[in-house]
């Protein structure tokens, strides 16, 4: 029996979330700032009698996950920015073959080797497809250790349900920050069971199955793409998740995700104390993006400030959602810089709040 409350870092919480979601296979290659996750899985997967492999590369890890997934298992890999770049071909194959998988990216500063400080500069890569071909992956962005645990559990259900990879997009701050997890390790969380009547398990008692993404027949690949697009449409209708704060009477709204949203929350609460009519939208799914609430809000307010640890990536999606209905401002830091409350106040004051 676990204690009522335990202290964990975000990386470990993601690991425990995967364990409790009945993840049967994990493969990963060390990279900071996600090493705690690989180490956690090494120990816990062994304890649970499941498969852990330290692979020879991120490419190998994603392809092992491909194999485990097509054999019917819940499978996960994790890495940080440079390693996620290496996984892109594999993620594209997973989508093409309609295989579920969970991929964790605990982002660090880039481009290149960059540094190991927190960053949100892989937003485009995560939400726009990342690898080759027309595709999307569901992207979940936790902002606390507890949410990292919960969203990881959810990610396995979403992956199985839609037969599509799901990305958990966190940053180095979330990965390494310690926070208490209240009680959740005691609870008997229900694990959804999805029948995998497409998996390769040997053709005993049935016709042989083929899992592939090569479609050479006349029009075959176009039809496959249409089917995938219908799936993405259905995901974008059903799976949008976000948190909203004080939108009812807000005149200005901050939009931020992940750990940055917590800094923004502090700013919002502080200004509310000073009777400023300010609110917050925190996208939890970065794809599908909560564009409807942003558009509706934009019609009623005077301005939006997007805050990110990047040069302004989510900013583009916010602007697309706003469609010019209100001014959109940006406050960002790059290469491991974290926006401070002061910088956000400063920006807000320029917006005449």
């Amino acid at each position, binding site marked *: 029996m676990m204690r009522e409350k335990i202290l964990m870092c975000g990386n470990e919480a993601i690991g425990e979330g995967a364990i409790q979601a009945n993840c049967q296979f994990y493969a990963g290659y060390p990279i900071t700032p996600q090493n705690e996750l690989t180490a956690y899985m090494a120990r816990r997967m062994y304890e649970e009698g499941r*498969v852990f492999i330290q692979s020879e590369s991120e490419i*190998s890890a994603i392809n092992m996950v*491909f*194999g485990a997934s097509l054999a019917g298992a819940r499978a996960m890999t994790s890495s940080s920015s440079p390693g996620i770049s290496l996984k892109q071909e594999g993620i594209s194959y997973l989508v093409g073959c309609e295989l579920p998988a969970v991929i964790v990216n605990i982002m660090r500063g880039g481009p290149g080797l960059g540094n190991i400080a927190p960053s949100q500069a892989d937003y485009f890569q995560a939400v726009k497809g990342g690898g080759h071909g027309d595709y999307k992956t569901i992207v979940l962005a936790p902002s606390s250790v507890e949410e990292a645990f919960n969203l990881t559990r959810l990610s396995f259900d979403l992956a199985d349900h839609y037969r599509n990879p799901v990305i958990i997009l966190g940053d180095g701050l979330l990965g390494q920050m310690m926070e208490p997890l209240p009680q959740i390790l005691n609870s008997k969380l229900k694990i959804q069971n999805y029948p995998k009547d497409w998996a390769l398990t040997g*053709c*005993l008692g049935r016709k*042989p199955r083929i899992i592939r993404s090569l479609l050479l027949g006349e029009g075959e690949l176009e039809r496959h793409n249409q089917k995938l697009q219908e799936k993405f449409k259905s995901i974008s209708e059903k799976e949008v998740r976000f948190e909203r704060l004080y939108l009812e009477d807000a005149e200005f709204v901050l939009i931020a995700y992940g750990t940055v949203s917590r800094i923004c929350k502090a700013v919002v609460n502080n200004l509310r104390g000073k009777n400023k009519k300010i609110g917050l939208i925190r996208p939890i799914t970065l794809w599908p993006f909560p564009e409807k609430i942003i558009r509706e809000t934009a019609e009623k307010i005077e301005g939006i400030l997007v805050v990110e640890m990047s040069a302004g990536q989510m900013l583009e999606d916010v602007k697309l959602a706003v469609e010019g209905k209100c001014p959109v401002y940006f406050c960002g830091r790059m290469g491991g810089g974290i926006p401070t409350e002061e910088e956000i106040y400063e920006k807000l004051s320029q917006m005449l709040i």
Partner: protein
Amino acid sequence: MKITNKTSSTNQTSKALRKVFSLPASMRDVAMHYCSGCGHGIIHRLICEVIDELEIREKTIGVAPVGCAVLAYDYWNFDTTEASHGRPPAVATGIKRILPERIVFTYQGDGDLAAIGTAEIIHTANRGENITVIFVNNAVYGMTGGQMAPTTILGQKTETTPWGRDAQRDGFPLKISEMLALLSGVVYVERTAVNNAKNVLLTKKAIKKAFLNQIENKGFSLVEILSPCPTYWRMSPVEAVKWIETEMVKYYPLGVIKG
């Protein structure tokens, strides 16, 4: 290449005709896309015959490569997937670790296994994964139009070595089977060829051993098969099988390398 039973029933009456040559249950009854004289078709069939004989069709999962054999799943009548270029050993690792009772094998060309997938094959072998690898060495990249492969022999002309492979410029042909044999995780490595009837039978024997090793949980087994590519060797099928005998085996000697 036909493998007929010499002791066939010529002395039986016509009413009791006995079938001596038929399609393995593991093989689909479809025409293959391979060029004439290509070795892939023979090797596909040998694998199917072995799978039939070992009665493992219903528990076998094949991993096809990116290369000329990418369509192998159209010919094999058992569960099959296709890995990205070079990654079949990683995919097979994932499958086998989840389903250890199933029989998992990869089928890979020399570009797939010995160039882009070098890391995967070495580390899968080194972990001693209990899988079977069928490695088809045709000394050239077939699917992309006949470029140099890591196994292209010195002097051999390809699209990207128009004056012949030159060690100074292009490096040496890679003897990856010999390299793999050094690894502790590897139990069996043999090099065979499909250039004549005798060698075809020896190849089948080697493939069978590589599958048996897996069934008996012995560990990683690999069969390298020298295989003709008349199209990109710019030869007739007859010249191609001769070239294996006169040129290729000089650099890639046949026989058991380990096990």
